[in-house]
């Protein structure tokens, strides 16, 4: 095992794949200078300006050019710097990238990775804190990835780069600089659609992903001390998602709580709840519930931001209720 942050893990994965496949390259603002978090540090020296391409602040063209470059056989990683800026590139992402393969009758498969560090981080306020991953699960034509630890950041990044279809990669900003460990040596791809079991228990199933995962795990420890044992699944990828693992777990526990940092209303948790009830039937599911943020823009003020945050305490309370009801 090696000590890394998630930033390191992502960097090692991209570096490994760029060494392996000369078609892989990166474009985005300030990437040649190492990227905002150092996720591309050393790339200019190793790969040269032709494979780590800094751009002006032109998100729509960064996205569209990434697609164009993919259509002619290269494999770009499109860096959006902070998730919220992808709003400036929506046509290129939604009407173009997501549509190409199907709309052109399978002639082309745009092999792009769109990297979008998302979520609350150091009181960044309404335009720099959003988590809207559920929008993109709703969008046919893309793969949606949202890791929560270094090993997954690396392994899923390798899969994303090797994928022939577009992958939207949500780096969890709040965990990015946290210390973590991952296996040494060559990074193996982690398949999409396979959840990771973080804890075994029979009292309820908690399904979660991305930046909230460490808080869920804190809650799980507190719950265990109170005699409630949760079965915890980190989905890791939201499309495809590991429906089989979730169904198997809920079959056992009969109680489901989905926890995400994103707004609860219209969040992906709702889809999971609906599928579980649909597949297992109401007779076999005692509780199926979501815990997310209130439907509000993120306030700047730290105490107000804390109000809307999904906290360990809120998770413990929701899980207790779900387990005991």
């Amino acid at each position, binding site marked *: 095992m090696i000590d890394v942050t998630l930033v390191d893990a992502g960097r090692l994965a991209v570096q490994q794949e760029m060494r392996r496949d*000369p*078609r892989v390259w990166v474009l985005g*603002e*300030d990437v040649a*200078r190492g990227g905002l978090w150092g996720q591309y540090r050393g790339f200019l020296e190793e790969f*040269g*300006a*032709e*494979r780590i391409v*800094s*751009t*002006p*602040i*032109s*998100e*729509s*063209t960064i996205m569209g050019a990434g697609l164009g470059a993919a259509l002619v056989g*290269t494999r770009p990683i499109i860096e959006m710097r902070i998730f*919220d*800026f992808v*709003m*400036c590139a929506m046509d290129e992402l939604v009407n173009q990238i997501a549509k190409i393969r199907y709309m052109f009758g399978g002639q082309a498969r745009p092999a792009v990775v769109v990297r979008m560090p998302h979520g609350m981080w*150091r*009181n*960044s*306020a*309404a*335009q*720099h804190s959003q988590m809207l991953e559920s929008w993109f699960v709703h969008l046919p034509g893309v793969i949606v990835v949202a890791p929560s630890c270094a090993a997954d950041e690396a392994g899923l990044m390798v899969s994303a780069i090797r994928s022939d279809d577009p992958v939207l990669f949500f780096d969890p900003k709040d965990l990015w600089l946290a210390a973590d460990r991952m296996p040494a040596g060559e990074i193996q791809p982690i398949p999409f659609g396979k959840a990771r079991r973080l804890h075994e228990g029979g009292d309820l199933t908690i399904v979660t992903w991305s930046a909230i995962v460490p808080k869920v795990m804190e809650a799980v420890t507190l719950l265990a001390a109170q005699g409630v044992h949760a079965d915890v699944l980190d989905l890791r990828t939201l499309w495809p998602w590991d429906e089989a693992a979730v169904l198997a777990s809920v079959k056992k526990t009969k109680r489901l709580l989905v926890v995400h940092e994103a707004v609860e209303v219209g969040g992906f948790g709702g889809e999971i709840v609906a599928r579980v009830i649909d597949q297992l039937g109401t007779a076999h599911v005692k509780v199926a519930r979501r815990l997310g943020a*209130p439907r*509000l823009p993120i*306030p*700047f*003020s*730290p*105490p*107000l931001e804390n*109000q809307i945050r999904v906290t360990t305490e809120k998770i413990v309370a929701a899980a207790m209720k779900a387990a005991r009801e």
Partner: protein
Amino acid sequence: MKKIFSTNFCLAFKKQMAKNRAKAGDLWIIMAKPRASENTPPRELLEKLFRTAYAIRVFETEGIKLYRQGLIRGYFHPYLGQEGIATGVCAALRKGDFIASTHRGHGHCIAWGADIKRMVAELLQKETGYCRGYGGSMHIADITTGNLGANGIVGAGTPLGVGAALAAQVRGSDAVTVTFTTDGATNNGTFLESLNLAAIWNLNFILVIENNQYAVSTPIGESTRETDLFKRGAAIGVESHLVDGNDPLAVYNLTEESARKCRAGQGPILIEARTFRHMGHHVNDPGKYMPEDKLAYYKQRDPVDRARNNFVDLGHASAADVSTIERSVEKEFADAVEFSKGSREVSVDEFRAFAAVY
């Protein structure tokens, strides 16, 4: 390993980059020539320009101290070094006009006449702040006075400004709208789209590019081949000017003339105000990539010093006059901190009630 990009292309690209960089450097030297002003400006104006520029300087310098003490959180993009632009532009506008700002917006707010108390309170997340602590540094707005707000999205203020100008036209008002934008934002589609719409509709719209020659760590020569940003206006039929952004009086004169032209139906107008930051992109960026000689050059032409010197030389102000203004500006900031510290934060109940609105 097989290369997929032609080496020739890469070499040509790098050569062009180097050329652009050299060019950006040359321009900064050309700009050094002082502009002669014909008429002696009124003392009141000179006093106002100095007071405003100094108020921005104090706000940013003291604000950074509060940030370092951990009292201010989140993003904070100082306007240090660029004070001449907001100061000159806003002094040339009048009540009923509108401004839209950027992520580096404190200076625009202050020059627009904002209440320093409510600005500091916003940074300190107090209920008395302009946005009641919901917005913070990057989102201070004062809609009632026509300040359409700072903006966390580069380039987003430009269409907003066009909209305000169009609304003024629809209502038959002669209000002028100024959008402050940045060199970085000129490479975003909103720049061209907005300026073009303003042009076909003859709007009372002044687009001021604050060209500080960097977008975070990217020097302008790497993000555009033509670093004279004002030249972009001509291509779509918009009257365009270059001005020394570190000279508040020159900025004032140009804006005053531009606003007059707009009100006479000759808008829109594009102004490139060239300047330089005194530090990195935000409070936590040491800005090591900024060339020292260039920084020294711009610091020598400090806009606050220029405003002070103008007040003294052209306005015949005494050292005592200067110090009276400086002490009063400093006191205003200190009072604002006291006021903010005495203010409460938005309560959780109130937050919930507000949250229930939609």
